[in-house]
């Protein structure tokens, strides 16, 4: 981690903006493009002021066409630029899916490295903001499943800026998913100027010896809250914020489990085919003999994300997370 000494007190969405701005100042090949990112400053104001500072050739309001936005970015990246396309909500990324998986993810492989795709696709993801239909999806697993892509989900303002900077400087395509539920939930000190957080490294948010709880993004907060509640009952959780979902930090995942022998995974995406299964498999492969209980998955249900009247039931809450963790700790 490289940092300057000055800090600013920022929300997560302000940290996105600060990260973009810092990288654009650092490297004129960095180009932001997408729907409403320019004059409007983004529907969440994540790009506010960038159009005024860098002009319409580096902050581009595109027509309404996700496949076009990402496909154009791939061309720009192949030419040598560092495009940062924004998809307005993750639920609207699907028209661009073909471009991301068939081209961005494979350009390096198919050309044996002659052409590469140093592109960062940013999209807000996840539920809990009482948004309309298709605005609450959490489908990170689609992208983790695709070889050639990196997938990053920050959970704090400082990480957001640092991980975004690393993603932009990374030689390969990154899907950078932003937890919009906590875009403005809290502030923290974020290093001003150049600041990077390496991709592929998880963060231990809370140390504990009884059970390892793996999570990321917006679920980090209810998970930490559940861990604090359980501590009052004498259950000590180790909360691990994965931060990068592809590639996973297997070392941190396994090290914690070797200490606790028990694990739970918390994610808001549907259970079936979610990352909980992948993390469980890593524990089976690398630490079977340490295992003392079945791994618990505390997740969204295998249903479409409901409209907002029911979303509080769909998203893992501290109550649900505590229940799940107790199951693991009480086993057998």
């Amino acid at each position: 981690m490289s940092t300057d000494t000055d800090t600013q007190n920022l929300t997560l969405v302000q940290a996105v903006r600060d990260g973009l701005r810092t990288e654009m100042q650092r490297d004129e090949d960095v180009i932001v493009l997408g729907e409403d990112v320019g004059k409007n400053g983004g529907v969440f104001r994540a790009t506010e002021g960038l159009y005024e500072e860098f002009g319409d050739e580096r902050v581009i309001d595109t027509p309404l066409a996700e496949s076009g936005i990402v496909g154009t970015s791939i061309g720009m990246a192949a030419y040598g630029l560092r495009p940062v396309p924004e998809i307005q909500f993750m639920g609207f990324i699907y028209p661009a899916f073909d471009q991301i998986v068939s081209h961005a993810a494979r350009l390096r492989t198919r050309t044996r490295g002659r052409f590469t795709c140093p592109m960062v696709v940013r999209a807000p993801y996840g539920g809990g903001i009482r948004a309309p239909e298709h605005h609450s999806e959490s489908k990170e697993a689609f992208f983790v499943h695709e070889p050639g892509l990196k997938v990053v989900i920050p959970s704090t303002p400082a990480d957001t800026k640092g991980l975004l900077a690393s993603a932009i400087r990374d030689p390969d395509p990154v899907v950078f998913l932003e937890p919009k539920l906590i875009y403005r939930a809290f502030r923290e000190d974020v290093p001003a100027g150049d600041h990077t957080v390496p991709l592929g490294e998880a963060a231990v948010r809370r140390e504990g010896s009884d059970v390892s709880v793996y999570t990321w993004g917006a679920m980090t907060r209810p998970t930490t809250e559940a861990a604090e509640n359980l501590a009052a009952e004498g259950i000590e959780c180790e909360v691990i914020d994965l931060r990068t979902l592809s590639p996973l930090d297997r070392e941190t995942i396994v090290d914690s489990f070797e200490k606790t022998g028990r694990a739970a995974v918390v994610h808001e995406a549907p259970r079936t085919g979610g990352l909980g299964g992948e993390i469980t498999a890593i524990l089976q492969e690398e630490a079977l003999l340490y295992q003392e209980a079945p791994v618990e998955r505390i997740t969204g249900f295998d249903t479409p994300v409901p409209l907002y009247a029911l979303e509080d039931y769909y998203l893992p809450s501290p109550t649900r997370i505590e229940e799940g963790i107790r199951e693991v700790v009480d086993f057998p």
Partner: protein
Amino acid sequence: MSDVFDRAPDDRVQVLDESGDLVGEPPDLSDAELRDLYRHMRLARHFDERAVSLQRQGRMGTYPPLAGQEAAQVGSAAALEPRDWIAPSYREHATVHVHGLDLAEILLYWMGHGAGGWSTDANVLPPAVPIATQIPHTTGLALAAKRRDDDAVACAYFGDGATSEGDFHEGLNVAGVFDVPAVFVCNNNGWAISVPRERQTASETLAGKAAAYGIDGVQVDGMDPLATYRVTRAAVEKARAPGDRPRPTLIEAVQYRFGAHTTADDPTVYRDESEVDEWRKRDPITRLERYLRETGRLDDDGVVEVDAAVRDQVSTAIDRAERTARPDPDGMFDDVYADPTPALRAQRSHLHSLRDRHGDSAFLKD
């Protein structure tokens, strides 16, 4: 009919000018039907004002307003028969209501109830929130109607931004190739959130894009209810009995979004209020009201009557929507498949037992 289709893409069809004077051939509508158009437009405007206000008061979630777009929404829907199908975007509150959808159902969707659609017997697909995705569905509906020889027409509604999406191209292309009975109504309201129509495409008109698919394209004054009715009616009749013209039609209804994209949007960031003022002078409701008054079809009493009726209708709908209890969380697991999978059954009973033990207050944030 031919005067509607045999014209340049920028030769905009108009029946009433901005002051409500007759400047084109009026459609064949009875006095009662004309007053009904007016009532529906007034209803749409009032519904919209109340909906925005409900959102502001925290009684409803994000809502996409339609003010300014009543003529295109009501005029075109009035040209359809109940057997016809509609595939709407998320802003077509008035269109789907004219086609048989209860106002309370529309409110409940924006209040976060339901599974993503409406409870209705009307031939209306659920609103398409991703952009332009309903356009190929419309082609499919029309292809199916043709195959079944049902004499039904399918009608898509979408905005100017949607014409930039791949699905617009693919849907219209297939419609042209298979000559299906479809009408594609583009409600060009000038803005796709912050992107103005002229930055959406370098094409001079949206209607002109029809040429690429070998179908008819017509531009109409979308703030003129009689013109939108007339053009849609002509397109629907052609779809049913094509003669020597292609069945599908792309209609570009030129209009303006008076308000924000949604209640989460602030248009003052990206457009001048003076532009809005300019378009307000073409208010479709004022225009039709003047025409009806001038031609003796409506008087002060009639206006007062409509006023009271729409207020009553909207507040009844709001009452019904607000009295509707929060849906049972069990319902989340229904209708994912025809038969719930074992995983879904297990998850439903898990949530059930959690609620039994902790109570609903452990889950709900409000």
